[in-house]
């Protein structure tokens, strides 16, 4: 209960700070939203060139994108911690975060959360509902249930992947190069992998980016065809989360409270 109060108070202070820079916050919201919307427009543009991509139509692919972006946005909103942990490692700031009267994860969430995550959740949820309606699965309780499972597994895989990537900051000074690159690459992997060659399908399944986009959405859209990869999404999500938490544990042990030479001005 005490943690809940601290969490709410931390959120209130963060929002108060952001409200002091209204134009900046608005620029960030519009910039981020614009980026996602342009990505979705690219999908629409592709379908001005071709009537379908493999066996998939425009609304099905829009649903794949929207599901992935919605899961990512909810993950950022509720659990932005992985994306800021490298800063704590590099600047040696984990010390004072560790002695605060709330768990590190909660505290980091309160100071790093941003209004743009809320706007992204709203927009992507709307896009997901519209595309679900146009693919005909909105009226099917069973398929919508599968979509909810897909969202859950996608979100957990995202969080697990991010934890693993950002915890590398405890060993390398430049882990952010991984995260930025992976984020950009993730956008390009949000297409049906069954139109790609076999080795590439293997790579995307192993990474496992295919479990953040294609398999979960295909599971909800065509459960008969993609039942097994869809079900596998949950154990994959559990493995990724477990891997992320193990990495976090090792990263905390590795942390030496000294920051990096770059932070001392030696770069």
């Amino acid at each position, binding site marked *: 209960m005490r943690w809940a109060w601290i969490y709410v108070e931390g959120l209130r202070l963060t929002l108060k700070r952001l409200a002091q*820079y209204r*134009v*900046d*916050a608005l*620029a*960030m*919201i*519009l*910039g*981020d939203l*614009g*980026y996602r919307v*342009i*990505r979705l*427009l*690219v999908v629409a*543009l*592709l379908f*001005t*060139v*071709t*009537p*379908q*991509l*493999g066996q998939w139509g425009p609304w099905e692919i829009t649903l794949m994108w929207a599901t992935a972006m919605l899961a990512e946005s909810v993950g950022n909103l509720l659990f932005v911690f992985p994306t800021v942990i490298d800063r704590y490692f590099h600047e040696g700031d984990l010390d004072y975060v560790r002695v605060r009267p709330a768990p590190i994860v909660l505290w980091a969430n309160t100071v790093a959360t941003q209004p*743009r995550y809320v706007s992204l959740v709203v927009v992507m949820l709307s896009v997901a509902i519209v595309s679900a309606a146009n693919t005909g699965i909105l009226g099917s309780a069973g398929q919508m249930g599968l979509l909810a499972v897909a969202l859950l597994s996608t979100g957990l895989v995202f969080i697990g992947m991010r934890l693993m990537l950002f915890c590398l900051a405890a060993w*390398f000074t*430049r882990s952010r*190069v*991984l995260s*930025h*690159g*992976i*984020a*950009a*690459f993730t956008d*390009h*992997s949000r*297409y049906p992998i069954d*139109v*790609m*060659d076999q080795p*590439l399908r293997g*790579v*995307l399944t192993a990474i496992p980016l295919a479990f953040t986009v294609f398999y979960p959405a295909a599971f909800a859209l065509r459960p008969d065809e993609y039942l097994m990869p869809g079900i596998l999404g949950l154990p994959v999500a559990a493995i990724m989360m477990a891997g992320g938490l193990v990495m976090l544990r090792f990263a905390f042990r590795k942390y030496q409270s000294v920051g990096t030479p770059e932070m001392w001005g030696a770069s």
Partner: protein
Amino acid sequence: MQAATLPIAVAWSYVKVSLARRIGFFMSLAITLLTTWILVGLWAAIRQNSVEAQAEFTAAELATYIVIAQVVSLARMSHANRQFFYQALRHVHTGEIAMDLVRPIDNQVLRYSQWLGVFAVDALMVAVPTWLVFRLTGIVGNPHSGVQAGLFAVSVALGWLVAAGFHYLLAALTLVITQTPGVNLMRVALQEVLGGGFIPLALMPGWLATAAVVFPFHAMVSSPTLIYIGHLQGLDALAALGIQAAWGLGLIVGGRLLWMQLVRRVLVQGG
């Protein structure tokens, strides 16, 4: 004499710094290779069902287009792209911009020189290896001819000039707003779409292709790529180079004017 050698010294120092931080470029190379692989597969699937794509490009031309567009793409989320932008942002936030302003080198020349050094390493460690991998696997062909290869090299250099000019505009914006990362994200998306790197301009709906020509992004990616595959030859290629040069020079002038206006509002206090 010093004015002439300073930009070279700055560019060289950024080559050395970039080489010291190789991991960023190795990651960028791995991601560019995977992204290009995905896009080649995606466009092969699109072409199968697209009359327009079949009419505009042979299968080999389309694969070459996609690979070369990624090779010359200055939009990739590489270390080079981010460093240029975030460094300007950090200097404003921390007050380090005061040091930039008293350095014995013009701010615009300083930024272009830094960007040149990082771009050279990006080209060496990401662009050329990506081209080599897809060339050796036979997915991408050679330039259409020797002349086209020469024109392609000039076009890539001019594309860099346009990209550097656009980045400088964004760097100038960091003087007035703190949350420019949102603007930078938009820049990446617009550059990818309107640059023709993701969808060839010839396959875009007419209104969008027309709109794309109004923006400078096509001069960064589409022009060099079309020259490489031989879709722009002779006078058409020279005209494309002229447009690239005009954008490059226009952005130098525009960036300079914007900087001069905005830098007057800077209060060097950091924070």
